[in-house]
């Protein structure tokens, strides 16, 4: 979290509910965002994350619930009065205005920004912040997708919004630009200390940029925590399986430990009770050791740079994904036999579906 964070929440979403016919998009959804914090909402399509963001922006009516920003109830306030800066998934620059005119538009609507020279200066400052001050006179169709989203970010920030709302702003961009712009968004957000809500379905994006990540499912927040805690200590099978890679392996739970592959590991709170269960193993929670007497066989090895992914077939034909340092890639050629040693980090174990 950025240094200017205080204990008073900048944003409070309280028990939001919104249904579209029989589909419940938000179901008792609550969230608090601290001053200057960047919270990412992560979840599959249709989980309600965009509905939550649009409700905060005032673009989505609610069936019930309350939205408080900076201590003020804005639940029934019009979108145009809310002071939210928003960057959309699709390119949303006004096509008939230059980049500078786009950035100036929000300022033009504010009484305190009537001064034309002051407006232009502020717009150029914002474009400078996103590295596009030299493109100020260009029109949207003369800019690349990444540049357009940068201008959209500058436009959203120019009005010094109470909250910056990012609705999957990187999803239309190619991988390299996406990664660059993601880092830039974080740099600018930290520099300005703007309270930010970021919605994405890309876990790498969410984990890489946010102070806290909230995982949503069926209109509710399943867990919200720092990226590391979310990854290391999921409180439900849904979060464990959605964030990062897991392989479900049959195990036996006894007294807070999961017994599997001839070894045992501690299980996380919220895991299944004593008895048979499925341990959700992270690729990095197991070490491989060459073992010619083992019944487990390496099926495939993928080189990923500093690490490699090894797919091992267990005696019961289950495929287990294990991560190993790249310099050990030659120890596990396909067809070789391997044994396992577990790290002491706890795993999440879920009940076996009936």
């Amino acid at each position, binding site marked *: 979290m950025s240094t200017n964070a205080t204990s008073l929440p900048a944003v409070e979403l309280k028990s939001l509910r919104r249904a579209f016919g029989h589909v419940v998009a938000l179901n008792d959804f609550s969230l608090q965002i601290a001053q200057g914090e960047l919270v990412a909402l992560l979840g599959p399509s249709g989980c309600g994350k965009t509905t939550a963001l649009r409700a905060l922006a005032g673009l989505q009516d609610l069936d019930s619930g309350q939205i408080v920003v900076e201590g003020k109830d804005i639940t029934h306030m019009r979108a*145009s009065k809310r*002071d939210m800066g*928003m960057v959309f998934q699709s390119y949303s620059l006004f096509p*008939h205005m*230059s980049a500078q005119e786009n950035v100036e538009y929000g300022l033009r*609507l*504010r009484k305190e920004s009537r001064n034309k020279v002051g407006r232009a200066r502020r717009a150029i400052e914002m474009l400078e912040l996103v590295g596009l001050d030299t493109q100020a006179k260009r029109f949207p169709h003369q800019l690349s997708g990444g540049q357009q989203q940068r201008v959209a970010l500058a436009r*959203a920030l120019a009005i010094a919004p109470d909250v910056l709302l990012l609705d999957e702003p990187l999803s239309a961009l190619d991988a390299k630009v996406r990664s660059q712009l993601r880092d830039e968004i974080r740099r600018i957000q930290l520099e300005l200390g703007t309270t930010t809500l970021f919605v994405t379905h890309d876990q790498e994006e969410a984990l890489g940029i946010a102070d806290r990540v909230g995982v949503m499912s069926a209109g509710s927040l399943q867990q919200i925590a720092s990226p590391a805690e979310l990854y290391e200590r999921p409180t439900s099978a849904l979060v464990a399986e959605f964030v990062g890679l897991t392989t479900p392996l049959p195990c036996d739970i006894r007294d807070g430990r999961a017994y599997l592959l001839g070894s045992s590991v501690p299980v996380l709170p919220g895991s299944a009770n004593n008895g048979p269960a499925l341990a959700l193993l992270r690729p990095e929670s197991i070490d491989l050791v060459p073992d010619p007497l083992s019944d487990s066989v390496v099926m495939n090895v993928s080189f990923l740079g500093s690490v490699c992914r090894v797919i091992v077939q267990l005696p019961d034909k289950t495929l287990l994904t294990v991560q190993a340092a790249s310099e050990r890639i030659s120890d596990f050629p396909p067809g070789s036999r391997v044994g396992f040693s577990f790290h002491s980090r706890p795993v999440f174990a879920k009940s076996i579906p009936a």
Partner: protein
Amino acid sequence: MKRLTGITRIWRAVILSIIGFYMLLPIVAMADFSTRAGVDGGRTFDSWAAIPSAPGLLESIAVSLQLAFLAVVGILVLLVPTMIWVHLRLPLMRRPLEVLCLLPIAIPAIVIVVGIAPIYRWLSQFFGSSPLSLAFIYTILTFPFAYRAVNTSLRSVDVNTLAEAARTLGASWPRTIAEVIIPNIRNGILGACVISIALVLGEFTISSLLNYETMQVVINLLGKREGQISVAVSLAALIFAFVLLVAIPTSGKKQEVGQGVD
């Protein structure tokens, strides 16, 4: 763009030539007839020069131009804002609005006249027998064509996202529509206006059946007495509508490109 093969080009040229010939032949014939000096040959512009002095003609042209203007005002005040509002806020009403707007093209003119005659009798209490009261029915008659032009523009731009962006930046609904939506569907609105003007200038059936003297009605009457003058006026009206159709949308496009290059 896909390159055209030789045979395709030839076919395209042949088809365009046939259509061009089909369209141009009557116009050339009208120009020829209106400038013909008797049966012995030779050219004269007497019939063109006689247009201002033809009885009732200039007045009827003025009436038709005023009607065209009022129909355009009707489109701009009634149809365009309604379409934008329905597109942005009432998406479920898009289909009913489309059907409603297309109705005038599906109903024969004579049926429309029979239907609206009582309404016009009632309207005459307020507006007298002014031919300008035709503006009400002309506005409705232009809906099918204007709707198509504006709808195409609305669908070619992501107006919902643009409107939401403007709203979050602090724009009220009227400002969003005036400053963000309308400039981006400008060509569609221009097209709708041009088509409406052309339609009103060319309308004959309804004004004739309701006994109003619009340009086409007077041209028809004139044609019975002064054939050459009536053809000259018709050709002038055709050229006027053609110039509007081509010149206005083209000038709009040029301006947009020019701004982009700055």
